[in-house]
């Protein structure tokens, strides 16, 4: 498969990338690891006039703590995140999810910024960032803005990213002590995309679950937080019975995807199973 023609520019800095991106009359896409974009180019689902390669911008590749946040530069690869001791210490579901993306070759190259800008409904980062209550930093020549993950992911392959903007950073709040997080995924065996992926964060203190955050990938046409599951467990004791009752609320009131991998009723069933598994890890 051969992509349609485009021009290629490699940016050495964010400022240079933003100025290349702002060229009038040329539909320009940002290239990072390319593991979402290049398949789309090959299928000619995307036919930009130019690409701006940001993968080698050193100022965008970091994972560091800043006060109560862990900041992840947008060109950090899935492998960088999978191997991050800082993230493993504070919010284990991020390295856990990173290690379940694709395969070693994909994780060596694919980036978190590229994945979320693409917003594939079966990708792993969107739901994980919703459950982590993360913020996404976007920069354009006009300046920078920070959106809650909830306001960034708008729907099927759709985000709040505007033309001329680049995802530069993901800000992950460090959860309170005693909070556990996990990502559990039923994956397509070849592509390893999520058929159902469940991210869960729960704080258990004095025998009670609080700050329950549960989000899904792969279930609907976009990632979503499942407030029914959250509300069913919040304020309750972390017993197997309460976890099962909360998980039974999974994916209600959403339009569930149906395809040749998993029909609607099977996907709904998987959502309940994976919610139960995830909640058992964090609260059981």
């Amino acid at each position, binding site marked *: 498969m*051969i992509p349609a023609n485009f021009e290629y520019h490699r940016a050495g800095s964010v400022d240079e990338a933003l100025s290349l991106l702002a060229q009038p009359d040329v539909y320009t896409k940002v290239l990072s690891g390319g593991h979402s974009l*290049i398949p789309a180019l*090959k299928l000619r689902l995307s036919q930009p006039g130019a690409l701006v390669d940001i993968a080698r911008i050193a100022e965008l590749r970091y994972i560091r703590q800043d006060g109560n946040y862990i900041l992840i530069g947008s060109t950090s690869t899935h492998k960088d995140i999978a191997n991050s001791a800082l993230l493993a210490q504070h919010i284990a579901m991020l390295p856990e999810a990173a290690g379940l993306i694709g*395969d*070693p*070759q*994909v994780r*060596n*190259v694919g980036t978190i910024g590229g994945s979320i800008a693409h917003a594939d409904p079966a990708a792993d980062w969107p739901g994980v960032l919703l459950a982590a209550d993360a913020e996404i930093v976007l920069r354009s020549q006009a300046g920078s803005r920070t959106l809650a993950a909830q306001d960034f992911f708008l729907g099927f392959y759709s985000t709040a990213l505007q033309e001329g903007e680049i995802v530069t950073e993901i800000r992950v709040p460090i959860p309170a002590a005693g909070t556990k997080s996990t990502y559990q995924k039923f994956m397509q065996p*070849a592509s390893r995309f999520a058929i159902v992926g469940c991210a869960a964060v729960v704080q258990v203190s004095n025998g009670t679950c609080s700050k329950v955050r549960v989000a899904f990938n792969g279930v609907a046409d976009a990632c979503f937080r499942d407030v029914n599951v959250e509300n069913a467990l919040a304020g309750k004791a972390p017993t197997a019975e309460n976890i099962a009752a909360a998980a039974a609320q999974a994916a209600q009131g959403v339009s569930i995807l149906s395809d040749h991998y998993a029909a609607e009723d099977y996907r709904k069933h998987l959502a309940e199973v994976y919610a139960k598994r995830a909640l058992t890890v964090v609260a059981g």
Partner: protein
Amino acid sequence: MSVKISVSINGKKYTSEVEPRQLLVYHLREALGLTGSHVGCDTSSCGACTVLVDGQAVKSCTTLAAQVDGCNVITVEGLAKNGSLHPIQEGFKEEHGLQCGFCTPGMIMAAADLLQNNPDPSETEIRHALEGNFCRCTGYHNIVRSIQWAANKLKETNAAVL
């Protein structure tokens, strides 16, 4: 419009003019005649196109040639030295790690990435390291044994993977 790239491939410097849309695997196979890297699924699932870019295994069907400008690329052709097979290649021969051979170059390059980072992998670690490589003939058992054979050989001879 083409772009000029300068890439070290198997230790030799190549300077080429490529179309920006040219994929690395086609650049290697068609422009440079390095046909060891195979195009299997063409969708970054099967791993037959795996090469090392700056020491890391990547799928060359999902990489633009322009992206590796200035990089150090190693393909399966770059492993044998002075007419002697690389220990990983030897392992595939000794343990019958291939039947049709189509997936083999990618398996070998994925194994090279693994053994560089983990010289003494467990069977489970080898199987996880091959998640991005499909074999449709052997069922993986002999491939895993081939990589274990190579790990032992590298250890015995105290040799670096690359």
